[in-house]
Protein backbone atom coordinates (compact mmCIF):
# COMPACT_ATOMS: atom_id res chain seq x y z
CA UNK A 1 0.00 0.00 0.00
CA UNK A 2 1.64 3.23 -1.15
CA UNK A 3 0.48 6.76 -0.59
CA UNK A 4 -0.76 8.54 -3.71
CA UNK A 5 -0.01 12.14 -4.57
CA UNK A 6 -3.50 13.19 -3.42
CA UNK A 7 -2.85 11.48 -0.06
CA UNK A 8 0.32 13.47 0.40
CA UNK A 9 -1.48 16.70 -0.51
CA UNK A 10 -4.20 15.93 2.02
CA UNK A 11 -1.62 15.21 4.72
CA UNK A 12 0.27 18.37 3.81
CA UNK A 13 -2.87 20.52 3.96
CA UNK A 14 -3.83 19.04 7.36
CA UNK A 15 -0.31 19.58 8.71
CA UNK A 16 -0.34 23.18 7.47
CA UNK A 17 -3.80 23.79 9.00
CA UNK A 18 -2.73 22.30 12.33
CA UNK A 19 0.56 24.21 12.37
CA UNK A 20 -1.22 27.44 11.41
CA UNK A 21 -3.80 26.96 14.15
CA UNK A 22 -1.19 26.19 16.78
CA UNK A 23 0.85 29.17 15.62
CA UNK A 24 -2.24 31.38 15.93
CA UNK A 25 -2.86 30.03 19.44
CA UNK A 26 0.71 30.81 20.44
CA UNK A 27 0.51 34.27 18.88
CA UNK A 28 -2.66 35.03 20.82
CA UNK A 29 -1.07 33.74 23.98
CA UNK A 30 -0.19 36.75 26.01
CA UNK A 31 1.87 36.28 29.14
CA UNK A 32 2.37 39.94 29.97
CA UNK A 33 -1.14 41.42 30.23
CA UNK A 34 -3.43 41.02 33.23
CA UNK A 35 -5.22 37.68 33.11
CA UNK A 36 -8.80 37.00 34.04
CA UNK A 37 -10.58 33.65 34.42
CA UNK A 38 -14.10 33.73 33.03
CA UNK A 39 -16.29 30.97 34.40
CA UNK A 40 -19.21 29.93 32.21
CA UNK A 41 -21.95 27.47 33.07
CA UNK A 42 -24.38 26.42 30.33
CA UNK A 43 -23.12 29.24 28.13
CA UNK A 44 -23.73 31.97 30.68
CA UNK A 45 -20.95 33.93 32.34
CA UNK A 46 -21.09 33.13 36.07
CA UNK A 47 -18.12 35.07 37.31
CA UNK A 48 -14.87 36.71 36.23
CA UNK A 49 -11.94 36.18 38.56
CA UNK A 50 -8.92 38.44 38.27
CA UNK A 51 -5.81 36.30 38.48
CA UNK A 52 -3.28 38.07 40.67
CA UNK A 53 -0.34 36.88 42.72
CA UNK A 54 -1.39 36.09 46.27
CA UNK A 55 -5.12 36.14 45.50
CA UNK A 56 -7.20 33.12 46.47
CA UNK A 57 -10.81 32.42 45.67
CA UNK A 58 -12.97 29.33 45.63
CA UNK A 59 -16.16 29.17 43.61
CA UNK A 60 -18.63 26.33 43.77
CA UNK A 61 -20.88 25.82 40.76
CA UNK A 62 -24.04 23.71 40.73
CA UNK A 63 -25.86 22.11 43.61
CA UNK A 64 -25.26 18.85 45.44
CA UNK A 65 -25.06 17.15 42.07
CA UNK A 66 -23.42 18.33 38.86
CA UNK A 67 -21.01 20.48 40.82
CA UNK A 68 -17.60 21.89 39.96
CA UNK A 69 -15.26 23.50 42.45
CA UNK A 70 -13.22 26.24 40.77
CA UNK A 71 -10.15 27.36 42.68
CA UNK A 72 -8.14 30.45 41.77
CA UNK A 73 -4.84 30.78 43.57
CA UNK A 74 -1.78 32.93 43.03
CA UNK A 75 -2.46 33.80 39.40
CA UNK A 76 -3.62 30.34 38.38
CA UNK A 77 -6.98 28.60 38.22
CA UNK A 78 -8.08 24.97 38.26
CA UNK A 79 -11.13 22.81 38.82
CA UNK A 80 -10.26 21.14 42.10
CA UNK A 81 -13.21 18.78 42.27
CA UNK A 82 -16.22 17.78 40.21
CA UNK A 83 -18.70 14.92 40.10
CA UNK A 84 -18.53 14.41 36.34
CA UNK A 85 -17.74 10.81 35.37
CA UNK A 86 -14.73 11.47 33.14
CA UNK A 87 -12.92 13.94 35.46
CA UNK A 88 -11.21 15.51 32.45
CA UNK A 89 -11.71 18.99 33.91
CA UNK A 90 -9.97 18.02 37.17
CA UNK A 91 -7.13 16.30 35.33
CA UNK A 92 -6.56 19.37 33.14
CA UNK A 93 -4.94 20.93 36.24
CA UNK A 94 -3.81 24.53 36.58
CA UNK A 95 -4.18 27.00 33.74
CA UNK A 96 -2.84 30.52 33.89
CA UNK A 97 -2.40 32.13 30.49
CA UNK A 98 -4.81 32.98 27.70
CA UNK A 99 -6.17 31.23 25.66
CA UNK A 100 -5.93 28.19 27.93
CA UNK A 101 -9.20 26.81 29.18
CA UNK A 102 -10.75 24.05 31.22
CA UNK A 103 -13.82 22.34 29.85
CA UNK A 104 -16.23 20.10 31.72
CA UNK A 105 -18.59 18.73 29.09
CA UNK A 106 -20.94 16.75 31.38
CA UNK A 107 -21.67 19.80 33.55
CA UNK A 108 -21.32 22.23 30.64
CA UNK A 109 -18.76 24.33 32.43
CA UNK A 110 -16.02 26.32 30.71
CA UNK A 111 -13.27 28.18 32.55
CA UNK A 112 -11.56 30.39 30.04
CA UNK A 113 -8.51 32.54 30.60
CA UNK A 114 -8.69 35.86 28.82
CA UNK A 115 -6.17 38.62 28.71
CA UNK A 116 -7.87 41.81 29.83
CA UNK A 117 -5.19 43.86 28.12
CA UNK A 118 -4.65 43.06 24.46
CA UNK A 119 -1.11 41.92 23.65
CA UNK A 120 -0.17 45.44 22.74
CA UNK A 121 3.02 45.75 20.74
CA UNK A 122 2.70 49.52 20.85
CA UNK A 123 3.42 49.43 24.59
CA UNK A 124 7.06 49.89 23.73
CA UNK A 125 6.54 53.01 21.65
CA UNK A 126 3.98 54.62 23.95
Amino acid at each position, binding site marked *: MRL*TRADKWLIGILLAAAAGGIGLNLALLSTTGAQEARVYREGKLVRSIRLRAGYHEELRLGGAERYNLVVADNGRVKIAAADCPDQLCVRTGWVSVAPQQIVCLPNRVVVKIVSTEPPDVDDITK
Partner: protein
Amino acid sequence: MTDTRRLVTLGLFVAIAGVLHAVEAWLPLPVPVPGVKLGLANIVSLAVIDLYGWREALVVAAARVVLGSLLGGAFLGPSFALGISGAAASTLAMAYAHSRWRPSLSLVGVSVLGAAVHNIAQITAAALLVASAAVFWYLPYLLLFALPTGLATGFTAAYFLAKLSRAGG
Protein backbone atom coordinates in the same frame (compact mmCIF):
# COMPACT_ATOMS: atom_id res chain seq x y z
CA MET B 1 -24.27 -12.76 -1.28
CA THR B 2 -27.49 -13.89 0.38
CA ASP B 3 -29.42 -11.66 2.74
CA THR B 4 -28.71 -13.90 5.72
CA ARG B 5 -25.00 -13.94 5.07
CA ARG B 6 -25.01 -10.16 4.66
CA LEU B 7 -26.92 -9.71 7.92
CA VAL B 8 -24.55 -11.97 9.84
CA THR B 9 -21.44 -10.30 8.41
CA LEU B 10 -22.72 -6.80 9.18
CA GLY B 11 -23.71 -7.97 12.68
CA LEU B 12 -20.18 -9.22 13.21
CA PHE B 13 -18.79 -5.88 12.07
CA VAL B 14 -21.09 -4.06 14.54
CA ALA B 15 -19.86 -6.33 17.34
CA ILE B 16 -16.18 -5.81 16.47
CA ALA B 17 -16.61 -2.05 16.11
CA GLY B 18 -18.61 -1.79 19.35
CA VAL B 19 -15.91 -3.60 21.31
CA LEU B 20 -13.15 -1.49 19.72
CA HIS B 21 -15.13 1.65 20.59
CA ALA B 22 -15.53 0.60 24.23
CA VAL B 23 -11.98 -0.72 24.68
CA GLU B 24 -10.53 2.45 23.22
CA ALA B 25 -12.13 4.48 26.02
CA TRP B 26 -10.06 2.46 28.54
CA LEU B 27 -6.78 3.36 26.89
CA PRO B 28 -5.44 6.62 28.23
CA LEU B 29 -3.13 8.14 25.65
CA PRO B 30 -0.07 9.97 26.96
CA VAL B 31 -1.26 13.20 25.39
CA PRO B 32 -2.26 16.37 27.26
CA VAL B 33 -5.15 17.10 24.90
CA PRO B 34 -8.52 15.71 26.02
CA GLY B 35 -10.45 13.89 23.32
CA VAL B 36 -7.54 12.37 21.43
CA LYS B 37 -8.38 8.79 20.54
CA LEU B 38 -6.94 6.13 18.28
CA GLY B 39 -10.15 5.78 16.28
CA LEU B 40 -9.87 2.01 16.10
CA ALA B 41 -13.52 1.63 15.11
CA ASN B 42 -12.63 3.63 12.03
CA ILE B 43 -11.01 0.47 10.64
CA VAL B 44 -14.40 -1.23 10.61
CA SER B 45 -16.12 1.79 9.04
CA LEU B 46 -13.55 1.78 6.23
CA ALA B 47 -13.95 -1.95 5.65
CA VAL B 48 -17.76 -1.74 5.54
CA ILE B 49 -17.63 1.24 3.13
CA ASP B 50 -15.30 -0.71 0.88
CA LEU B 51 -17.21 -4.00 1.04
CA TYR B 52 -20.83 -2.74 1.12
CA GLY B 53 -21.47 1.00 0.80
CA TRP B 54 -22.33 4.14 2.69
CA ARG B 55 -25.78 3.08 3.93
CA GLU B 56 -24.44 -0.05 5.59
CA ALA B 57 -21.44 1.85 6.94
CA LEU B 58 -23.70 4.51 8.50
CA VAL B 59 -25.92 1.87 10.13
CA VAL B 60 -22.87 -0.03 11.46
CA ALA B 61 -21.32 3.22 12.78
CA ALA B 62 -24.54 4.28 14.54
CA ALA B 63 -25.07 0.81 16.03
CA ARG B 64 -21.43 0.78 17.11
CA VAL B 65 -21.71 4.08 19.01
CA VAL B 66 -24.92 2.93 20.74
CA LEU B 67 -23.37 -0.44 21.63
CA GLY B 68 -20.01 1.05 22.64
CA SER B 69 -21.54 3.68 24.89
CA LEU B 70 -23.83 1.09 26.49
CA LEU B 71 -20.75 -1.01 27.26
CA GLY B 72 -18.88 2.03 28.51
CA GLY B 73 -21.81 3.30 30.60
CA ALA B 74 -22.05 6.58 28.73
CA PHE B 75 -25.30 6.02 26.85
CA LEU B 76 -27.09 9.28 25.91
CA GLY B 77 -24.52 11.33 27.81
CA PRO B 78 -22.43 14.12 26.33
CA SER B 79 -19.72 11.75 25.14
CA PHE B 80 -22.46 9.79 23.35
CA ALA B 81 -23.52 12.97 21.54
CA LEU B 82 -19.90 13.60 20.56
CA GLY B 83 -19.41 10.00 19.47
CA ILE B 84 -22.52 9.81 17.29
CA SER B 85 -21.87 13.14 15.56
CA GLY B 86 -18.24 12.27 14.95
CA ALA B 87 -19.04 8.78 13.68
CA ALA B 88 -21.84 9.93 11.36
CA ALA B 89 -19.87 12.84 9.87
CA SER B 90 -16.66 10.88 9.35
CA THR B 91 -18.47 7.85 7.87
CA LEU B 92 -20.33 10.03 5.36
CA ALA B 93 -17.15 11.95 4.45
CA MET B 94 -15.19 8.73 3.99
CA ALA B 95 -17.96 7.14 1.92
CA TYR B 96 -18.09 10.20 -0.34
CA ALA B 97 -14.32 10.31 -0.76
CA HIS B 98 -14.24 6.54 -1.32
CA SER B 99 -16.76 6.68 -4.16
CA ARG B 100 -15.65 9.96 -5.80
CA TRP B 101 -11.97 10.55 -5.19
CA ARG B 102 -10.48 7.14 -5.62
CA PRO B 103 -8.09 5.92 -6.91
CA SER B 104 -6.32 9.30 -6.83
CA LEU B 105 -6.94 9.26 -3.07
CA SER B 106 -6.00 5.89 -1.58
CA LEU B 107 -7.80 4.08 1.23
CA VAL B 108 -5.23 5.55 3.63
CA GLY B 109 -6.03 9.06 2.37
CA VAL B 110 -9.74 8.36 2.85
CA SER B 111 -8.97 7.26 6.41
CA VAL B 112 -6.95 10.42 7.20
CA LEU B 113 -9.80 12.54 5.83
CA GLY B 114 -12.26 10.60 7.99
CA ALA B 115 -10.15 11.14 11.10
CA ALA B 116 -9.94 14.90 10.44
CA VAL B 117 -13.69 15.20 9.77
CA HIS B 118 -14.34 13.17 12.93
CA ASN B 119 -12.43 15.72 15.01
CA ILE B 120 -14.07 18.73 13.35
CA ALA B 121 -17.55 17.26 13.94
CA GLN B 122 -16.76 16.41 17.56
CA ILE B 123 -15.38 19.87 18.31
CA THR B 124 -18.46 21.43 16.72
CA ALA B 125 -20.72 19.20 18.85
CA ALA B 126 -18.71 20.06 21.96
CA ALA B 127 -18.94 23.78 21.18
CA LEU B 128 -22.72 23.46 20.86
CA LEU B 129 -22.92 21.48 24.12
CA VAL B 130 -21.03 24.00 26.22
CA ALA B 131 -22.43 26.91 24.15
CA SER B 132 -18.95 28.32 23.73
CA ALA B 133 -16.82 28.60 20.63
CA ALA B 134 -13.71 28.56 22.80
CA VAL B 135 -13.27 24.79 22.47
CA PHE B 136 -12.23 25.33 18.83
CA TRP B 137 -8.92 26.25 20.41
CA TYR B 138 -8.25 22.49 20.61
CA LEU B 139 -8.93 21.81 16.95
CA PRO B 140 -5.39 22.32 15.58
CA TYR B 141 -3.98 19.94 18.21
CA LEU B 142 -6.65 17.35 17.44
CA LEU B 143 -5.95 17.68 13.70
CA LEU B 144 -2.27 17.12 14.38
CA PHE B 145 -3.08 13.84 16.17
CA ALA B 146 -5.61 12.89 13.49
CA LEU B 147 -2.71 12.41 11.05
CA PRO B 148 -0.89 9.50 12.73
CA THR B 149 -4.12 7.85 13.92
CA GLY B 150 -5.76 8.23 10.49
CA LEU B 151 -2.67 6.79 8.79
CA ALA B 152 -2.52 3.86 11.22
CA THR B 153 -6.20 2.94 10.88
CA GLY B 154 -6.02 3.40 7.08
CA PHE B 155 -3.05 1.05 6.72
CA THR B 156 -4.72 -1.46 9.03
CA ALA B 157 -7.93 -1.40 6.99
CA ALA B 158 -6.02 -1.72 3.72
CA TYR B 159 -4.07 -4.68 5.10
CA PHE B 160 -7.27 -6.31 6.35
CA LEU B 161 -9.07 -5.86 3.00
CA ALA B 162 -6.08 -7.21 1.05
CA LYS B 163 -6.01 -10.33 3.26
CA LEU B 164 -9.78 -10.69 2.93
CA SER B 165 -9.77 -10.65 -0.88
CA ARG B 166 -6.90 -13.16 -0.96
CA ALA B 167 -8.91 -15.44 1.35
CA GLY B 168 -11.75 -15.22 -1.14
CA GLY B 169 -14.25 -13.72 1.33
